[in-house]
């Protein structure tokens, strides 16, 4: 094509695909902040931003412009290199993880067979950004935030991993596309039903992983000012912000793919409705499912007070972990006994 070497074309083609994923994602992040302010506002019986543009639709654009023009302050005594690297470390995994998310049947940037492991690895790397930011700032509050974040990681990550093990046991694959295909059938064939406790544990761990309320101890606005990002301003702060919201969208996408059948239609197999909605593209269903989860993120933030961090650890170790292990055991028996319609044929696959 155009006389370019084969390798170069592959690179360009991949870059185009990346832009096609990242650009809407960034727009999604911008409008997620708007949705957050609106929804939380509504829950607090007020109407939220409505001044910039019609109904406030340009508010996120105005916010972005403001942050771009602000000065980036490097605190004296900060480790300059790490201070700048930290936000990059937190956003890179949040974006890179999108490579393996299947948007529709076959519509995926990288059809990785170890997709689930890749996701687990990348989402865990994100927390290094937080810890390094806290350390590099040379500020007590930032450091406290980083320590809290480190304490939080150990308490939820294991339960989260076990929840994913449940999915992989049921699907018999680590490939996210195959996991979705294993959930083929109607709404009741998706894994949220047989793996309900794991579904809840996964989503709540996801909330903890993105440092969102009620697990936002690393930020802890009322206790340690802004936690790990107190010293950050301008675009460096904006990147942390982007990473947080990109992670929220990522967790929403993952929860949809793993437990709500990704791009599958909820009406498949329903007599009349199934045929009527057969033309709807899978991407639409995935986006709908993601928005449900994102709404829950915002709903939680409007509702729950922050956990104390010893409470988070108690929740992680004494509630999530036993529940997931117990359910893995139950699931193992179900697979062994080939209990349909979910677990028959897993062993044979």
């Amino acid at each position, binding site marked *: 094509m155009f006389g370019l070497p084969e390798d170069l074309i592959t690179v360009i083609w991949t870059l185009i695909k990346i832009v096609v994923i990242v650009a809407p994602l960034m727009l999604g992040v911008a409008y997620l902040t708007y949705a957050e302010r609106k929804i939380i506002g509504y829950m607090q*019986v007020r109407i939220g931003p409505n001044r910039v543009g019609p109904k406030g639709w340009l508010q996120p654009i105005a916010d972005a412009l403001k942050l771009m023009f602000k000065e980036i302050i490097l605190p004296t005594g900060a480790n300059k290199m790490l201070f700048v690297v930290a936000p990059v470390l937190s956003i890179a995994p949040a974006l890179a993880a999108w490579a393996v998310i299947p948007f529709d049947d076959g519509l995926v940037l990288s059809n990785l067979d170890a997709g689930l492991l890749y996701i687990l690895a990348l989402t865990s790397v994100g927390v290094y950004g937080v810890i390094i930011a806290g350390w590099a700032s040379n500020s007590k509050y930032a450091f406290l935030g980083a320590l809290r974040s480190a304490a939080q990681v150990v308490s939820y990550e294991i339960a989260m991993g076990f929840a994913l093990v449940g999915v992989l046991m049921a699907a018999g694959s680590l490939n996210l596309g195959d996991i979705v295909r294993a959930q083929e059938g109607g709404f009741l064939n998706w894994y949220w039903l047989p793996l309900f406790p794991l579904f809840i544990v996964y989503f709540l761990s996801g909330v903890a992983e993105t440092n969102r309320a009620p697990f936002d101890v690393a930020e802890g606005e009322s206790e340690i000012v802004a936690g790990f990002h107190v010293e950050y301003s301008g675009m460096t702060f904006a990147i942390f912000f982007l990473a947080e919201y990109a992670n929220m969208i990522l967790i929403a996408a993952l929860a949809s793919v793993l437990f709500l059948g990704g791009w599958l239609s909820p009406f498949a197999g329903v007599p009349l409705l199934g045929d009527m909605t057969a033309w709807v593209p899978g991407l639409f269903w995935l986006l709908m499912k993601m928005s449900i989860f994102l709404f829950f993120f915002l709903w939680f933030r409007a509702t729950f007070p922050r956990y104390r961090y010893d409470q988070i650890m108690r929740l992680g170790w004494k509630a999530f972990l036993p529940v997931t292990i117990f359910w893995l055991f139950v699931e193992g028996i179900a697979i062994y006994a080939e209990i349909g319609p979910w677990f028959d044929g897993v062993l044979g696959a």
Partner: protein
Amino acid sequence: MNMLKKIIRTWTLSELLKGLSVTGRYLFRKKFTLNYPEEKAPQSPRFRGLHALRRYPDGEERCIACKLCEAVCPAMAITIEAAPRDEDAPEINGVGRSRNYGNRRTTKYELDLFKCIFCGYCEEACPVEAIVETRVYEYIFDGRGQNVMTKEALLRIGDEHEPQLAADLEVDGRYR
């Protein structure tokens, strides 16, 4: 039994769901927000905004320099100096000098709006309803020293809002 109840409550997350249902219901509540510059909150006739000095219908200023407002002001925002009006006092709205000659009037009536706490005691103390508080609450200072309202400024505000002030005092009159 209580133990069992507690366990069930904990593991069904019932308390958390209850919380979610509350915020969920509030999501659809009617919103209280006023779109401020377009919509404004209703004001009472007793609204305590920017101050004003009033005049009698014939144009004579009401204030008789009794200094009760100065005395009652808890923030000590009011400073008054008084003297009998001298012979060269100008005529006011055609009212002759004969009537006004030698009257005790303020030579200085200054009100520091930075000190003022808008308690309305000056208004209450005034025997002649001279110092009042208007409904004006949208004002700015764009220069140093503008926070100190002079007698002229206060009288001007009074002239501007007299119909409203008179109406408000009329409404409130029966409770005084």
